């Protein structure tokens, strides 16, 4: 029945999908701080106390009802049995159907109630766990927007996505399962124990002599199969990794005649995987037959003792029957409890990852009395700026420059020189380590981020669009813009024309991969957004490649129009742009090595001059 509860297969990003875990005892990792994590998880249950209380009560009632069932049913069979004996002996009036009928009616009622309470409990607990899942996801989403960009430099998106979906899912699924299993298992075991004792303490004793034996066996089997499951997981990782790598680099493998080597390595991994796979499957299949056999052992022991006790007229046949049923219902919750501890580890591990994420450092809060910044004048001052993505690795050592309102600044340098770092500092995506950046004489840290960023417009090279209509995507520049304003911005950015040629025009849906419009068109759209936002200061990232020539011309026109009358910082690749700049900042290995106009810099004959010339040397015949 377990698998009916497993729900749809959800393969989250980053994950490798289902790996075929054991029926229970997943080879999961363990939480570092189990207790702390669980305590924190418990705080999420606040506000659900009434529901939890009721479902606890329902669980207890449901279990009690289903436990007393066999005992009462035993009475019915005993009565039946006595009736039959009386018939044989020729004494008495035979089977008392009224009595048996009454008992059965009572039982129908009890079982019905038990099921109703059982469902009530499940209903409430799923509500609680789904609400927790909802809140965790919401908190993660909110957290993402409060974290400094720095965090995302070192974390890949798949990992964060996996927290939103897989980890939260694990927490909520195992939570409702665990809570109800924990309660019902404990109540069942206690209840069953009491019932067994009321029938016969001797038989209970015999039954329990055997119990620890199955516990030991369950423990051993879990231990061994876990070892192989971990191995299987590892080897599966190897196989999957190799497959991904070889398929991804298929042309390279073929071009270098690497097929045989690739196959050889695959076969080795595959064989290892096979060995661990069958062992883990086998070991986990051992559990049931072994536990069953031990169950039968105790059954015979109890039957022998019960037969003897029956002869001594100490217990009735119905009692033996009920006792045997109780014994059977004792093993199941025991296995479940063994499982719960395992599953709880999984819950804790998943919850810990989520909590770790939620505990990550956030952006420094905005100042309480922020400087006002309605209309920026445009004086930008870099005052001995020192910056590094990590404090150990400083990329900008000591940069000082003063930019006058309305100036056009080009940032140049070889790929990877850290040109975009400047942009990120201006927008306050990162904070300087030392020194200050001042806008209109105020340190940028004195403003609210929101106010500061409103004055800056940004057009980046990798245009960011989302799944939605073109209209929605354009309006992103200013969410409260009217349709007319959007159209106007689109016209200014040379977007209008191509959009009108598209199937649904402005209502065309950008697909999930944002691949149904071209790279150049995407760039035009981000320019349109900047028009809509109408910022005082522009930050532009010139496209380097991958745009067809006609669109390239449009982009250049649109950018030129956007820059008109605006102060702008341009990450420049084009000589024309560089030459027309009022100030060129030359970056090399993360530092600004020179600044000045094109002519000044050429005259200096330094790094810029070399860079400028080197672009063309290689083409000279050797």
């Amino acid at each position, binding site marked *: 029945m377990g698998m*009916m509860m497993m729900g749809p297969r959800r393969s989250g990003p980053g994950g490798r*999908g*289902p790996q075929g875990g054991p029926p229970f005892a997943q080879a999961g990792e363990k939480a570092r701080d189990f207790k702390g994590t669980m305590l924190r998880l418990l705080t999420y249950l606040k506000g659900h106390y009434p529901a939890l209380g009721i479902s606890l009560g329902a669980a207890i009632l449901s279990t009690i009802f*289903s436990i007393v069932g066999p005992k009462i*049913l035993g009475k019915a*069979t005993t009565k*039946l049995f006595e009736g039959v004996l009386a018939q044989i002996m020729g004494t008495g009036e035979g*089977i008392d159907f009224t009595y048996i009928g009454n008992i059965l009616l009572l039982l129908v009622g009890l*079982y019905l109630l*038990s*099921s109703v309470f*059982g469902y009530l409990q*499940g209903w409430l607990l799923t509500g609680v766990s*789904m609400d927790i899942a909802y809140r965790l*996801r*919401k908190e993660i*989403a909110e957290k*993402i*927007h409060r974290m400094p960009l720095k965090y995302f430099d070192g974390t890949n998106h798949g990992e964060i996505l996996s927290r939103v*979906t897989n980890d939260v899912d694990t927490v909520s699924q195992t939570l409702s399962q665990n809570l109800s299993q924990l309660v019902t298992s404990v109540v069942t075991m206690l209840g069953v124990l009491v019932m067994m004792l009321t029938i016969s303490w001797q038989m209970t004793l015999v039954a329990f002599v055997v119990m620890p034996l199955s516990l030991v066996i369950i423990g051993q089997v879990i231990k061994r199969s876990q070892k192989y499951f971990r191995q299987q997981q590892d080897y599966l990782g190897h196989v*999957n990794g190799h*497959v991904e790598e070889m*398929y*991804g*680099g298929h*042309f*390279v493998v073929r071009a270098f005649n690497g*097929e045989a080597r690739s*196959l050889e390595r*695959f076969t080795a991994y595959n064989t290892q*995987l*096979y060995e661990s796979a069958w062992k883990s499957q086998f070991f986990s*299949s*051992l559990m049931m*037959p*072994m536990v069953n056999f031990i169950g039968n052992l105790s059954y*015979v022991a109890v*039957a*022998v003792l019960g037969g*003897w006790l*029956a002869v001594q007229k100490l217990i009735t*046949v119905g009692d*033996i029957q009920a006792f045997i049923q109780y014994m059977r219902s004792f093993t199941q919750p025991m296995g479940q409890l063994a499982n719960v501890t395992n599953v709880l580890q999984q819950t804790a591990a998943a919850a810990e990852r989520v909590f770790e994420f939620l505990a990550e450092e956030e952006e420094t809060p905005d100042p309480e009395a922020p400087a006002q910044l309605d209309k920026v004048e445009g004086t930008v001052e870099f005052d001995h700026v020192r910056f590094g993505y990590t404090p150990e690795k400083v990329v900008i050592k000591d940069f000082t420059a003063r930019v006058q309102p309305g100036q056009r600044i080009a940032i140049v340098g070889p*790929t*990877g020189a850290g040109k975009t770092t400047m942009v990120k500092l201006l*927008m306050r995506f990162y904070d300087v380590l030392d020194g200050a950046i001042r806008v209109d004489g105020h340190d940028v840290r004195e403003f609210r981020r929101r106010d500061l*960023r409103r004055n*800056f*417009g940004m057009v980046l090279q990798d245009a*960011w669009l989302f799944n939605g209509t073109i209209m929605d995507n354009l309006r*992103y520049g200013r969410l409260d813009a009217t349709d007319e304003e959007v159209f106007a911005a689109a016209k200014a950015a040379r977007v209008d024309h191509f959009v009108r040629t598209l199937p649904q025009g402005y209502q065309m849906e950008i697909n*999930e991969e944002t691949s149904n419009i071209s790279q150049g068109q995407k760039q035009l759209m981000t320019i349109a*957004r900047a028009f809509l936002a109408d910022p005082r200061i522009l930050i532009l990232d010139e496209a380097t*490649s991958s745009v*067809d*020539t006609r669109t*390239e011309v449009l982009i250049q026109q649109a950018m030129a129009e956007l820059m008109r009358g605006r102060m702008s910082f341009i990450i420049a690749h084009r000589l024309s742009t560089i030459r027309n700049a009022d100030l060129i900042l030359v970056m090399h290995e993360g530092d600004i090595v020179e600044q000045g106009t094109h002519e000044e810099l050429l005259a200096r004959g330094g790094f810029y001059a070399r860079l400028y010339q*080197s672009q063309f040397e*290689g083409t*000279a015949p050797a």
Partner: protein
Amino acid sequence: MVRLVRYLKPYTLLLLAVLVALLIQAWADLSLPDYMSRIVNYGIQQNGVETPVPEALRDQTFERLKLFLTDEERAQVEAAYTRVDSSSADYAALVKRYPALSEQPIWVRKALSAQDIKALTSPLGRAWLAVSAIERIMSDPQAAATIGKQMGVDLSKLPAGTDLFTLLPKMPAPQRTALIERLNQQAEALGESMVNQMAVVAVRMEYQALGMDVTALQNAYILRTGGTMLLLALLGAVCTVTVGYLAARTAAGVARDLRQDVFRKVTFFSGAEFEKFSTASLITRTTNDVTQLQMVLMMMVRMVVYAPILGIGAIIRASGKGSTMWWLIAVAVSILLSLIFIVFTVATPRFKLIQKLVDRLNLVTRESLSGMMVIRAFNTQEHELQRFDRTNRDLTSTMLFVSRVIVVMMPAMMLIMNGLMLAIVWVGAHEVAKANMQVGDMMAFMQYALQIVMSFLMVSIMFIILPRAAVSADRVADVLETPISIQDPPQPRAFPEPFVPVIEFDHVGFRYPGAEENVLCGITFTAQPGQVVGIIGSTGSGKSTLVNLIPRFYDVSEGAIRISGVDIREVRLADLHDKIGYVPQRGLLFSGTLASNLRYADENAPDEVVQEAISIAQAREVVESRPEGLEAPIAQGGTNVSGGQRQRLAIARALVKRAPIYIFDDSFSALDFRTEAALRRALRTALRDSTVLIVTQRVSSILHADQIIVLDEGVIVGKGTHEELMATCPEYREIVFSQLRQEDLQTLVTVGA
């Protein structure tokens, strides 16, 4: 599923063994309740006495019993017993077991087969009934009256103390036959099982009269039965373990074989097949789908095959126990199946919806992450949160609904099972009253009923799982059944010696399989040895496709490509690839070390060759920046080196090959201009004798190529040197001007020249 059946073939023997083990397991599992009921029926209820055919009885009782047997039956019974007295040979042994032997002769049952005993059961049962009735008549005159009335004989006039047993033989034969007849009718009305149970009580009294230890007898019976039961349980367990072992080996083995075959197949796929499936899909087919199949196969073997065996076996046995009650099971099963059906028709469409919503949630989150700078720049965090919250709410409510539907299953199933048990007790009680069955049989029937319902449950679960597995199976089979479109020719030719790296494109056209339009059309040009041929054009103009035709990643649709005068389709692929040094678009590295990557073309390449390649590729600083040098580890996909470093390493890797033909597919894009310039200078010297094809979007990369081919929408629109093209080709001019301003260009060209 059917398409992959042949993968089971090597495991036929294992599977047969599984079948045998499963049959034994089912037999053992099904026999267990039987033994359980015997312990209760005979061991406890009948005090260990199983049958009305006693193992020994007193001479007197023997004579009395014979009075109520027909002549034929009497002969049978006499043949089955031996008379023993103090003069008998085994007297000493027997008197210990039957102390009464010391006072009187007794009859001891011979060693009889179960069948013989069964034949004697019914006549002796009736005889016991009669004897015990008469004994009661004699001891209790009041009872005599009632019993006599039942028998149609007026016994009230009988003088007290009359020994009826002495009277009976003196009765006239017809009268006695009539009496026996009437007794038989009486017994018939009671039913055989009731007669037996009553007779057994008499047998037990007879044993007591013989002085036997009845309690010990009972214990011995329970222990004997229990022992057998344990043996059976052990046998069952051994079989289950065997099945587990064989099933694990089979499932893991089939998965291994499938994985191996799929991987081998895909390894030799051409670009066309990759195009057809997509790389991502091929990866899941090789990994997840096969793993899925392994799990399902394991379950199939252990459950799907077993459930019907168990179910059918249980039905057969249960019908023997309570043939009048099996309709109860049918009702329970049909309720259960309807429940499963309803739950899954309600839940399945929502499962799909959940999957969609999870994807949606992922998408929104992914967009939040990838657009982080834009979002913050436009201050639209609130807007993003609202988008997320909408999906989050939808997902939560759908999941809640589905979970609550699924949660019904457990309590409802318990209710059905428990209800079935109650119904069996109620209906069974009436059957017992009618003496159609015994209490123990009823209890056994309950067990069988549970097993039958469970096996139906298991089968129905499989019907839910199988369709999903079938999808995986089809996906895997699709790969295995796809013919490889590019293979070695049956009679391969060799390249002529000496090999001249001339590449000739002769009216080449190409279209992707299933595409409507050609990607390339009428491509004709020749690349001479030692020449550098630049191929330029905008994205989607077919540049990469063109060079991918040379190593036969794809085959031309029209025309032909000749190398050294030989159509490349006539030589072996390995020979062709030997001649080509290929540098892919993304500098693709494999996990391992720097050295293992650089020596990918030739594991035994001498150090000098590797070092030289590193120098030419401007990759020296990449190696030197790492403390481990050439042994520095490379992560999967080369993610631990930067894009530019990857490209340089990929170039070095190709250079180690020292091939006569080199293809650079946009391989300089991540390099800064300075590095690119240095690299191109080095290449020019190193590849002096090779034919070099460079695909690029940067004019500066090919400005000085011997021949530049300008592609636009799959057609060659210009062919010649830079100067020629500047004069004749407007498309080329457009590209150049979009990248460089005219005046710059002039300076550059003059500087360069």
